[in-house]
């Protein structure tokens, strides 16, 4: 019942769906993970590019597809997608099918090709102030999932793709669990169980905790690495994490991160409201203060011209 294959498919290979007979031309491999391989493909006869994921295990891939299906059916998800530009309006999951290779049935699904880079690569190239913006988009993505009764679970930099202007897309829905069930898949350093900070039962707070650690990792990499590697499992605690919040890099985020780490947000909506109010303006303003602060010489020049103006007016009025 399990499909296992190690074969990779070279550029130029054509994948033909067994049930729906669609044909996809493989351009190149995009990546490969624990559950499958993802290729950049073009639907034959069109100019449309997609990402095509082949699964190693039929059940695992299907359960990922089930999540995507149910998200697609979600009303809120649809409407909120329509607000974006064209690209967002098209749905994420495009087609589901199997194909045969060397007498093996390989299940696959086709999804929108996300042209972006993982969030850490994105922020390396941009200023750190972008995290205020990108973080907000990511929180809103998580909120859409939560509204549908799902928890993302395995939130890590590789699963967050960011396009050139900061549009965020989550990929890899293999770790998504229904709220109230157990977390299917996680990465230890972002997992609240690993930090002795709570259960592995899926709830909104689980994703918010991972999100906070992801931010810490992005803002203050050395510090985060240090506390992750140093501690013995039983000694690990949120105290180690909170200890990093005093670092200047973390400054405008510290209060928010603290609340997420300690599970003090009632839900994701509250977390977003707080991000918009406390983090976003500060994260961006901090930077603008530094670059757009009026130089002293300009200030005195301005004061000088005011005095000159006054003198001028005085003389005009007087004579």
């Amino acid at each position: 019942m399990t499909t296992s294959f190690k074969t990779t498919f070279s550029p130029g290979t054509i994948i033909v769906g067994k049930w729906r007979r669609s044909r996809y031309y493989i351009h190149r491999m995009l990546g490969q993970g624990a559950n499958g391989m993802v290729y950049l493909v073009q639907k034959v006869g069109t100019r449309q590019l997609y990402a095509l994921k082949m699964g190693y295990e039929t059940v695992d891939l299907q359960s990922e597809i089930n999540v995507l299906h149910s998200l697609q059916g979600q009303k809120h998800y649809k409407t909120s997608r329509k607000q974006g530009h064209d690209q967002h309006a098209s749905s994420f999951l495009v087609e589901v099918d199997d194909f045969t290779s060397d007498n093996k049935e390989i299940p696959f699904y086709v999804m929108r090709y996300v042209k972006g880079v993982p969030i850490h690569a994105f922020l390396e190239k941009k200023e750190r102030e972008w995290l205020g913006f990108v973080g907000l988009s990511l929180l809103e993505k998580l909120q859409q999932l939560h509204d549908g009764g799902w928890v993302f679970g395995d939130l890590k930099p590789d699963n967050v793709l960011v396009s050139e202007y900061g549009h965020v897309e989550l990929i890899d829905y293999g770790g998504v669990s229904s709220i109230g069930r157990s977390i299917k898949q996680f990465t230890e350093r972002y997992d609240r169980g690993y930090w002795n900070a709570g259960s592995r039962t899926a709830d909104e707070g689980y994703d918010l905790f991972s999100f906070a650690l992801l931010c810490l990792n992005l803002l203050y990499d050395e510090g985060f690495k240090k506390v992750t590697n140093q501690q013995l499992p039983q000694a690990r605690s949120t105290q180690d994490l909170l200890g990093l919040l005093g670092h200047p890099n973390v400054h405008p985020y510290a209060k928010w991160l603290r609340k997420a780490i300690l599970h003090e947000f009632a839900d994701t909506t509250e977390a977003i409201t707080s991000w918009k109010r406390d983090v976003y303006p500060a994260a961006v303003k901090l930077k603008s203060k530094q670059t757009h602060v009026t130089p002293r010489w300009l200030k005195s020049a301005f004061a000088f011209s005011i005095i000159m103006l006054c003198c001028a007016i005085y003389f005009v009025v007087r004579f």
Partner: protein
Amino acid sequence: MKQILLITDGCSNVGVSPVLAAAHALKEGITVNVVGVIDYGTIGELGSIEIAEIAKAGGGISRVVGTPQLAQTMQMMTRKTVVQTIQHAVHKELTHILGDGSLEDLPPHQRAQVVEVVDELSETSPLQVALLIDASASMKPKLRSVEDAARDLMLSLQARQGTSQLAVFHYPGRHSGEEAVLDLDWTEDISRIHSLFGRIQMKGATPTGPAIFKVIDFYQYGTLNNNQAWNEEMMKREGILGDYVV
């Protein structure tokens, strides 16, 4: 669902073959997974072959990892095995409908429904995991990590909706004839997983096969002492049991 998760770092060297023991477990409805833990060097060719063979015979999975990966590996194996066990059970039920077809032969929308059932049952079915830990001399420096990994596994089990229990054994015991020692009886309580292996005296022998048989006994009778599946099996085969049980 019943699982044995064997944690070892080398080859068995005493008693009945662990591969046979694992095959017996599977026959009794217990899946056997094996983790080989190594921190330095390799596990040796013999060791790695044996590990793979035990898991195959026991219907489970085997992995060789270092102690830093131990916790996550155990979680992943346990979860995978649960899904596989459910999948087999569901598949058996479905053969009435599918004939001898497999999941891949189902059109995608029907497959979606089957997998939904698999996911549901994987989350809600009761689960027991018996950790069986090789405590031969070379394992000593790793026992600390093993205990941490056991606690981490319990955390994952607790998150399931179905009841989930863990028991912990090590082998060999203090004297010959004590093939395995119960360190922790079935529990759902994570706080009970602490200082499990404080009193262990390390020995050189590694009677993996006999230890697996002991755990099978425990699954069946709730104790390590009275009955022995191994002997009983022999007696049944030779028709002796009937004479004793009158």
